[in-house]
């Protein structure tokens, strides 16, 4: 039986909005808001959720989707997929993963890598179908769930990453710490990062803005 997003009872908020959206957000000028909840969960909780998801616990799936969906969407955007389509594909990717789990074909769950791999495959399949060059592939093919192929890595050349790493190494230790916390994959909001780093939210945003500028320059090879 084919699953749908609604059948699964998964919260639409998880897929419809960026992961730390604030429903009470104000208008222009106050658009970045502190998250209404604790954003990040630690590796222990992540492991626990993963184990429960592998046993078919939908609440655990929901929590994992809420945590990782935005990253899946952003990866699709990076590939040039339109935002509305990226969100649909991300939803489909999660549904496929849950179907795989229900069919007993999902023995491990490495996130967000596996969801990204699934979404990447679906996006490619969709593009091929639209071009009419190939017949649609079997979406349930288990080989596509192999997380060993790091798809995100293909987006950026190793050399550029190395340049960005060097640029990061030249930042202050506290800036490096803030950057690592923000991009650790633990799903920390900027407010969470501020708490963990012992800095104000405003300061964290300033630091991230500056680090982003420097790393972006390094990635784009404007200067080093």
């Amino acid at each position, binding site marked *: 039986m084919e699953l749908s997003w609604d059948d699964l009872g998964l919260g639409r908020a998880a897929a419809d909005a960026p992961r730390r959206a604030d429903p009470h957000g104000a208008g222009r000028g106050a658009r970045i808001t502190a998250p209404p909840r604790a954003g990040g969960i630690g590796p222990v909780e992540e492991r626990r959720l993963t184990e429960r998801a592998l046993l078919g616990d939908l609440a655990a799936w929901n929590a994992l989707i809420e945590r990782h969906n935005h990253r899946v969407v*952003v990866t699709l955007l990076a590939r*040039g997929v339109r935002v509305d389509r990226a969100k649909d594909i991300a939803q489909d990717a999660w549904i496929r993963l849950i179907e795989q789990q229900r069919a007993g074909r999902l023995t491990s769950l490495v996130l967000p890598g596996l969801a990204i791999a699934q979404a990447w495959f679906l996006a490619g399949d969709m593009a091929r179908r639209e071009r009419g060059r190939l017949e649609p592939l079997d979406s349930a093919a288990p080989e596509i769930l192999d997380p060993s192929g790091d798809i995100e*890595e293909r*987006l*950026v050349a190793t050399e550029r990453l190395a340049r960005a790493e060097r640029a990061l190494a030249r930042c202050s230790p506290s800036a490096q710490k803030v950057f690592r916390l923000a991009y650790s994959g633990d799903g920390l909001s900027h407010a969470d990062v501020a708490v963990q780093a012992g800095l104000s939210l405003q300061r964290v945003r300033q630091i991230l803005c500056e680090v982003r500028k420097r790393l972006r320059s390094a990635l784009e090879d404007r200067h080093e």
Partner: protein
Amino acid sequence: MSEVRGAAHPLAWELVAYVQGELAGGDAEALETHVAACDACGASLAREARVEVAFHHVAARASASARRSSARSARFAAGGAIAAAALLFVWLARGAGPSADAMSDAGPLPGAAGDAASLVDGG
């Protein structure tokens, strides 16, 4: 569909906030609606998304590197402690350290005997 007439283009920082997942819900939806219909903003969002993806990799590599460095430091510290213990042992074994008599003459450390006794006696 290259431009959306009458709709304000999102600012650069709003695109960044969106890919970072820091844009408020209603604003994120407004941005998505605009970007889905505006090729120029769609391209800008894709650029920011590529930077964001790259940043996740940079952070992962930096964290891995920090962990390796920390493990090396721990190994170095453990190695140093073992070496120091070995040197101390050799030093004591060669009789260079304080003699047993000297140790006994010095008496117990203040409070040590009483504390140890109380622990053994259980009160």
